[in-house]
């Protein structure tokens, strides 16, 4: 089962379209933060991305940025997609997504 941050990272990486740099994934996560909530820590996102790559939930690639620096990029693997599906399944079954806004 994935942790909450891992779920969010996989969804943000999928949203980025793949081959995304950690800073781009982080910006997507920050953009999805609920108003008034605390921003996700960048250090945690970066470290978790590398850990997930080590667990084969993401693949890591390289790209050269506009300043000529070699940068890591991340893409979700099939194992990562499966893990996300498994992780979201109970929430779906229990109608968790339908509750969004119900307690506002």
């Amino acid at each position, binding site marked *: 089962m994935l942790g909450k941050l891992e779920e969010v990272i996989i969804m943000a990486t999928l949203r980025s379209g793949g081959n995304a740099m950690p*800073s781009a994934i982080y910006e997507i996560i920050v953009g999805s933060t609920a108003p008034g909530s605390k921003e996700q*820590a960048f*250090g945690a996102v*970066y470290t978790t991305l590398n850990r997930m790559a080590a667990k084969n939930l993401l693949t890591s690639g390289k790209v050269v940025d506009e300043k000529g620096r*070699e940068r890591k990029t991340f893409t979700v693997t099939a194992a990562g997609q499966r893990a996300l599906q498994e992780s979201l399944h109970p929430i779906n079954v229990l109608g968790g997504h339908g509750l969004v806004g119900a307690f506002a």
Partner: protein
Amino acid sequence: MSAGKLNVPHKGGEGGVYFDANALKQLMEMTPHHTRIVMDGDDGQVIYAEDRDKVTAEGIDAALRIQAELKQVLLWRLEAEFLRSINKKPAYPEVGYFDWVMRPDDALDARANLEDAYDGWVARHGDRRANRIYRVQAFRLAAGYVLDRVSSRFGQIMKLVRFGF
């Protein structure tokens, strides 16, 4: 309309407001008394028109000609400032310890990503808070990196202990 006089001193050292050609003409027609119009040229050069003498058509023509040249100078100056601004290295907080605790390619990648994120923090929180967030997140990132390396080494050693001997 009242008087006008064109004066073009070099290195005048007097600041002024930049008017475009039409604005200058309209201003001279609309203000009957003691108006002094100042145009700012390159390197302290100041061009100004005063209302003590009569404004003549030749005077305005000359002003417009000079104005066109000034516009060009101003554009060059703006272009030079723009080029300077994009070549200027932003002052990111220093995290020299990255090179001590990380492999060189990992340090480069971590630093580059922090710099990207820093631009967003500046936009959302301002310079001072962005600097603080940068330092805290850099430390957190480096600490996570070291912990991962240590635990991976520890795992390898434990494997050797269990199966290697």
